[in-house]
């Protein structure tokens, strides 16, 4: 059951996406990365039928998702916005979710509630920002949907609760493998649990694939200025810095075969890769 996005166009006053194409494969944990305002939430809202695209399609298992209750019953979006009635108790929220989706995982929910020390008899209104996020996030982890989209799931969570969330996510995934798509800015922390990543910038996907593939596509080249300049002269430079006679360059898809001994080439983590790719694109465009 794969989810495909075909030729998606969306504009408010300015275009958000232009001919966006994407495929989300089953039982995979994705990271949806992008700088502020690139359209991550808009994309998730379109997939989950909350807002409509100007053109293009979202297909689940070949079926159009838009206004399709059966397809939508396999998609759950936990968004930053709180769409639940504020006077609802957490346990009632779960009952409501169970009545909508059927097989709500009560055991897992209770287990997670204990781990997070969440009082399920409290109303959403009376919970702190962090605990409200936890309540929504636990709902998302326990609904029986094939595609779970988490938009900023760790907003307002302290470091300890973020750690618990990562463990809970993996536990939920192990318990029932599904596709999780996590849109977040805290890339450094989440990198370890992601299998694949999608990097959005200026309304289009600039990189997608396995996290290892994406990180391997960006290299840090360090060494004497002259040697580095000669090596990267025909490469796609994302960013360069000079320190006296030394030079540091981030290169995308390095293709040089012979690396001089005085030059050091390092791998980068996903966050560094993301920053360089998104900033590098702006440099290249300008």
């Amino acid at each position, binding site marked *: 059951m794969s989810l495909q996005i075909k030729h998606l166009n969306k504009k408010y006053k300015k275009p958000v996406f232009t001919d966006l194409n994407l495929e989300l494969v089953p039982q995979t944990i994705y990271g949806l990365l992008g700088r502020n305002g690139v359209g991550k939430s808009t994309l998730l809202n379109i997939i989950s039928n*909350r*807002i409509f695209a100007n053109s293009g399609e979202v297909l689940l298992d070949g079926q159009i998702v838009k206004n399709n209750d059966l397809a939508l019953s396999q998609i759950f979006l936990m968004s930053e916005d709180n*769409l639940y009635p504020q006077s609802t108790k957490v346990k009632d929220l779960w009952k*409501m979710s169970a009545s909508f989706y059927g097989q709500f995982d009560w055991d897992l929910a209770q287990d997670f509630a204990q781990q997070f020390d969440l009082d399920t008899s409290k109303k959403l209104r009376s919970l702190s920002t962090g605990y409200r996020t936890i309540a929504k996030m636990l709902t998302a982890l326990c609904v029986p949907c094939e595609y779970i989209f988490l938009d900023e799931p760790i907003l307002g969570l302290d470091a300890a609760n973020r750690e618990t969330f990562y463990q809970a996510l993996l536990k939920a995934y192990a318990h029932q493998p599904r596709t999780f798509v996590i849109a977040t800015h805290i890339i450094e922390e989440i990198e370890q649990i992601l299998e694949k990543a999608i990097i959005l910038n200026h309304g289009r996907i600039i990189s997608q694939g396995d996290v290892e593939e994406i990180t391997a596509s960006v290299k840090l080249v360090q060494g004497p200025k002259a040697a580095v300049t000669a090596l990267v002269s025909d490469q796609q430079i994302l960013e360069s810095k000079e320190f006296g006679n030394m030079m540091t360059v981030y290169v995308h898809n390095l293709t040089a075969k012979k690396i001089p001994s005085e030059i050091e080439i390092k791998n980068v983590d996903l966050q560094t890769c993301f920053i360089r790719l998104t900033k590098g694109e702006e440099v290249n465009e300008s």
Partner: protein
Amino acid sequence: MKVKVLLAIKAKPFFRHAAAWWLGCWILVIVVAWLLAPQLKRGRTPTYLDVYGVILLYSVLTIIGPEKSSFKLSLQYGVSRRNYTLMMILFQLMNALFLAVLLLGGCQIFNSINSLVQLQFLQGIALQASWWENLSLIVLESLAYSSLTVLLLTLTDNFIWGKYVLTAIFGVWLLGVNEIVGWVTSKTDIFMQIGRFLEHTDHETRICVILAMLLAITLIFMGLTFVSNHFRVIKKQNNL
């Protein structure tokens, strides 16, 4: 078939939520009516505002309340716009029926306080009109208010400020519309004629006509809801 089952499952929490709203609205409206009664007892002539104020309160609360929260829930739980619209139509049909029951019940409450109060209350709209004339007028016009509320709400499409803006619009509109309604009814006499027909016909025909009126109003609701939901555009996702 699967879609129907799914709709039935998904509709349950909506109705439960809406029922809580309705109950709250009923209590509020009865309290307002109760507070109004002593004033009427003291001989103050009831005005359009007395009657419409209660209806307006009921209409705004019962339409905006469930509409606002149900739409949010439909977004959260992936209910298609089509099925959401169907559910809202059911809400509105039930709302219209509840309103009719409320008005009939309200008459009994006033009657139990003072038979003269009931007479004055109902005759606030048309002093020489009969009980049936007044009731049909109240029901029809309150449903018209509800329709307009739904339409305006869905067109404003901002759940945070929409209801306050709407309440203000209604407040101003109400003052002007009383005169217009009064003028129209005096000229066309349509509501009086419906009322007179109901008064002089047999009980079965009377029930059939009222049901037909409710059906007609429901069809208007359906049209309005379909049209307004079709044009519902979420301008800013922050307003969801």
